[in-house]
């Protein structure tokens, strides 16, 4: 469509069409208004360092959001995300401390190649998440309950592991420089985290849109019965989606420990809510079968910009909670309105 046509279309809309357009994009308008407010109050918010920080902060969140997004597309949800991320963070951290650090988790451990702890962390989260998927598919348990069970169980196992280190239960720090550089360093001026998030986005886009696995995921999420009678293996598809989520949580946890600079059994607590909220705001619908990579990106960015901006303005944390909570509920109700144009 040429720009002329777009302009023409915009000016020939009836009031009802405008109303529709407003409702369909209301959440973006509200978020844009909040951002505008922040910018007016603090003009220095618009700057390269802030922009960079926002992208960096969004990176791990985005990787995690892709994981839970797949599960939401299956009409599910994942409460265990935060604890699994914490598990991956503690495992990665415990295996990648500086050789000369005083309080090492494994005092005699040799320096490992970076990919070894990453893989170990991913195996842990993949196994736990696959159990979620299997329980959901096999016993037809609502994912809310299945993953709630996993959230509690995983925290228990994680805490036992955390306490079993040589220094006892205390935060794991003093990471190997290779690890820290790999995560928080930059390449050609671009933060590495942003590069990892971008690479993950590309892979996820192909997986979701161009592979049989992805199409089956949307089909099972959109209408499990139809998928079943068409010969899609619903059980395998479900478990694969959880395995993918587990893999992403593993990567997320590995990155998160180095990003923060330390890890403990409380790391990742509550991350599931941020990830789910970002998905929902990005239009990944709880009714299942709908969701795009671009949606996850928009959702995560909007949330990060708002939290960062509110902190930038010096707004109290508690007020931030109130605003975030309202945005989530507003986003969901407006999303529902899009699909039910009845009342």
């Amino acid at each position: 469509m040429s720009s002329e046509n777009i302009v023409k279309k915009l000016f020939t809309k009836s009031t009802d069409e405008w109303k529709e357009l407003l409702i369909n994009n209301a959440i973006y308008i509200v978020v844009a208004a909040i951002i505008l407010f922040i910018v007016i109050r603090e003009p220095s918010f618009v700057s390269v360092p802030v922009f960079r920080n926002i992208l960096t902060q969004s990176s791990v969140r985005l990787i995690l959001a892709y994981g839970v997004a797949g599960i939401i597309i299956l009409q599910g949800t994942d409460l265990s995300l935060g604890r699994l991320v914490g598990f991956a963070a503690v495992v990665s951290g415990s295996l990648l401390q500086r050789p000369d650090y005083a309080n090492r988790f494994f005092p005699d451990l040799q320096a490992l190649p970076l990919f070894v702890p990453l893989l170990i962390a991913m195996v842990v989260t993949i196994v736990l998440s696959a159990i979620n998927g299997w329980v959901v598919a096999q016993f037809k348990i609502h994912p809310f309950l299945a993953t709630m069970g996993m959230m509690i169980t995983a925290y228990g196992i994680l805490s036992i592991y955390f306490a079993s280190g040589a220094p006892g239960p205390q935060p794991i720090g003093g990471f190997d420089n290779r690890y820290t550089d790999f995560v928080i360093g930059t390449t050609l001026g671009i933060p590495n985290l942003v590069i990892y998030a971008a690479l993950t986005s590309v892979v996820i886009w192909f997986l979701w849109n161009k592979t049989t696995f992805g199409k089956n995921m949307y089909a099972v999420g959109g209408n499990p019965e139809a998928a079943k009678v068409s010969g899609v293996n619903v059980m395998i598809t479900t478990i694969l989606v959880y395995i993918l989520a587990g893999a992403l949580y593993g990567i997320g946890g590995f990155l998160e420990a180095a990003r923060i600079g330390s890890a403990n059994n409380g790391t990742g607590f509550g991350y599931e809510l941020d990830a789910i909220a970002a998905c929902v705001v990005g239009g990944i619908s709880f009714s299942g079968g709908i969701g795009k990579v671009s949606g996850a990106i928009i959702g995560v960015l909007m949330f990060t910009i708002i939290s960062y901006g509110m902190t930038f303005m010096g707004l109290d944390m508690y007020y931030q909670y109130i605003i975030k909570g309202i945005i989530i509920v507003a986003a969901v109700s407006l999303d529902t309105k899009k699909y039910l144009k009845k009342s």
Partner: protein
Amino acid sequence: MHEEYLLSIKDVCKSFSGVKVLKNVCLNIKAGTVHSLMGENGAGKSTLMKCLFGIYKQDSGEFFLDGEAFNFTDPKHALENGVSMVHQELNQVTKRTISDNIWLGRYPTKGPFVDEKKMYNDTMALFKRLNIHLDPRTRLDKLSVSQRQMVEIAKAVSYDAKVIVLDEPTSSLTAHEVEMLFDIMKVLKNEGVGIVYISHKMEEIFEVSDEVTVLRDGFYIGTEDIANLTMEKIVNMMVGRELEDRFPPKENVPGDVHMAVKNLSTRYAPEVHDVNFELKRGEILGVAGLVGAGRTEMVEALFGARTLKSGEIYIDGKKIDNSTPNKAIKNHFALLTEERRETGIYPVADITFNSTISNIKSYKNRLGYLVDKKMKDDTDEQIRAMRIKTPNRREKIRSLSGGNQQKVIIGRWLLTDPDILLLDEPTRGIDVGAKYEIYQLIINLAKRGKSIIVVSSEMPELLGITNRIMVMSNGRVSGIVNTDETTQTEIFNLSAKYLNNTREAEV
């Protein structure tokens, strides 16, 4: 030994917890023919099909395909062997595209990726063969029910089906769309496909069938060439008794104007534009039209279930406010919804709950808690008055047949003491015998002075029980005719009156 038949079902028996639902049922389908399978609801048609597709395991009996014995383990297994079924309730992923749905479960791949181009080309080739004009990249939720049905049939064909079972494919189609379906069936017939056609609509059976097999109460009654059959003969085979007429006599006498509707328009799509009509006391007014003509939307708008752009409703000359269903119920309106399973029944609740739920406030005593006895008495009264077939009122409604479920829901609305009943497809999916009882019920209500609007896609039904027929076309009223003076052709022409080019372009 069975080579003359493409598909042969021999002496199939099946029991559920000791109750025999199929007793030595046979069915023989020749290649290149349409074979209608008929019987009232509960006659065993769907159980037989479920045995064929391996959803149930038959107790005894055999299936032969091209003379070879087989037993499918699941619908997918049947599909791969060229036996497919188009279900009455479409089982599709509506948020995905046409081609995604057709090739679901067997996407062509190129390396690790799905081969979109091949999928598109294969779909186009398939559509060309069946003379379907749709873009494979369209999302299913952008299509009408009939178009979605075409997609489902195309999907069945795409498995190189030798046998296709069509389970009530026309229940939500309009006359024109039914013709399109029949054209596709002819193409398939010429290619040597055997079609099993399950339908309750007599007219269609005579139009498309080559042979008819009738089941009754799980018994195989017989197979006849269509040339040797008449409507009466089939009905006799199905119900085992004479049905004098398919419709009871219209004994209701319309009185003066009861309700007047002026300039009714809805705000959201699918829209209803500027509907004006009057409903007389004790009248049965039919509403005809194609799917998508806005008939359901019109009655929902009257009932306050849709947001209005404009419109006034007058009862006995007094303007009333029906902006929400609650207000409509207080104004003595009742709406029987089109999708009984989705918006009518509470499937896991019992008959008492289903009967009394819309009127639940009237069962409160002074302390505010519900009086069980009154609810039970009212329910028993409804079961008796409407002859609902059920062991007792504690039965879950989902275990009743479609006709009996419908009676419970009509009973539910009668308990709210309505003056105006809006009945949207009141006999959909209900067998011949039960339909007659529903018709009788409607006419009796009109005789008692209730004013009734009946939306229906079955022309004979509209002609059989209504006093006047309002025809809708593309969201507008295209005419109101006296039932005794009109013809099917006139109604059909009125239905197409406001079809414009945009609608055609979608098809």
